[in-house]
């Protein structure tokens, strides 16, 4: 194994692409890895290296690591989730020590996986009479507009203070330490409109709750909150109360 592993000074293992099609070395088990797969293999486009970080996180849907005959029975949707999941990378100690940051920018670098993630949302929300997609700054701005465009809804950015020009309404919400403020334009959403709220990730749910409150204050009806990733241990889903949550990937 060692001739195919290079230990970098940054503390990550780089594994040669051919290992993607065989089982992982026993010293680096799937359940202890959150992996970004890189390299060309079997006609699928991966990146050129794997960064495997030993973490306590287990990312669901690791089926690209499964033995070949298992894949025959995996349906198309599971394949898409699997590819999406494996394209997300974890950055330890960001933005501060002890936090394992789920980075979706590597998903955006895989056009197939990015398109699949948007398609999965579109398939769920098309034809549901949703007229507003509200996206939370800034990573919600990456996923929200393509969904809005495909389902014929308007896109409403939910922003940090002093970014939106003109009249806004504001909602204060709690952070781990201190508070923050979210703003929405006056007049962007009418009473009675059906709204989808989008962000890249749900953790404690505080940000999504602030967005929900802003939208409900103007009389909109929240159909669902949708995220690429959920961190279930942080119980954001409970915090949303009666508002349903849909995610593509759950990371424990």
């Amino acid at each position: 194994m060692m001739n195919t592993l290079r230990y970098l000074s940054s503390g990550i293992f780089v594994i040669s692409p051919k290992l993607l099609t065989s089982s992982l070395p026993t010293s680096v088990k799937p359940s202890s890895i959150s992996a970004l797969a890189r390299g060309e293999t079997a006609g699928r486009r991966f990146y050129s290296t794997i960064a495997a970080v030993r973490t306590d996180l287990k990312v669901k849907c690791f089926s690209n690591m499964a033995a070949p005959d298992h894949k025959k029975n995996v349906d198309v949707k599971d394949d898409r989730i699997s590819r999406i999941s494996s394209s997300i990378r974890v950055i330890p100690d960001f933005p501060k020590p002890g936090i394992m940051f789920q980075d979706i920018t590597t998903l955006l670098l895989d056009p197939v996986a990015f398109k699949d993630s948007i398609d999965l949302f579109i398939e769920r929300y098309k034809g549901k009479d949703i007229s507003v997609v509200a996206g939370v700054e800034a990573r919600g701005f990456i996923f929200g507009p393509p969904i809005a465009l495909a389902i014929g809804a308007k896109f409403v950015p939910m922003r940090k203070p002093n970014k939106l020009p003109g009249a806004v309404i504001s909602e204060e919400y709690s952070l781990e330490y201190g508070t923050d403020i979210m703003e929405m334009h006056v007049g962007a959403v009418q009473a009675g409109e059906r709204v989808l709220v989008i962000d890249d990730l749900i953790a404690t749910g505080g940000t999504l709750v602030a967005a929900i409150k802003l939208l409900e204050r103007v009389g909109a009806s929240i159909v669902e909150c949708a995220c690429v990733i959920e961190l279930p241990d942080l119980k954001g889903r409970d915090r949303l109360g009666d508002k349903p949550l849909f995610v593509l990937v759950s990371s424990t």
Partner: protein
Amino acid sequence: MSAGENDGCADRIDAIKSTLRVVPDFPKPGILFLDITTLLLDPKAFKDTIDLFVERYKQKNISVVAGIEARGFMFGPAIALAIGAKFVPLRKPKKLPGEVISEKYVLEYGTDCLEMHVGAVEPGERALVVDDLVATGGTLCAAMNLLERAGAVVVECACVIEVPDLKGRERLRLQGKPLYVLVESQFEAGS
């Protein structure tokens, strides 16, 4: 060039232009701020905006669409998805996790900084830079520098709006980079 020069675009451009709103004295007195959020509230105009960019850039072998935080994020990903390119966010400092390269640029007062992930772009890739608006061109130049430092070739910069009086087009031309916009602003921002 701007899109109004093309046949078949004029009606869509007019409709897009009519959705934009000007907010006076934002972010500070004397500035007439061109607000694209009202464009995003018009699904047909928003779709037309993206379609005009997609028509121009598909099948041009562009593999990277780089969008500038945060309003470039509202246009760039939809273009990237339609033309089969990856989307690379260019962000303010300390937002991108992991290893980044940084480019400083000059503001009216002081400097700012734009960052891009190491490894997001490979040498030789053809890139499009997207933002909602070009004024002086300082931010776009910083974006292009980041991409070129990573070895990419910037094919064009694309914005919804240009403020011609602030001479961003000229600044890009001096770096040999073309600029494509849908709408030219009639108002003189900053006066």
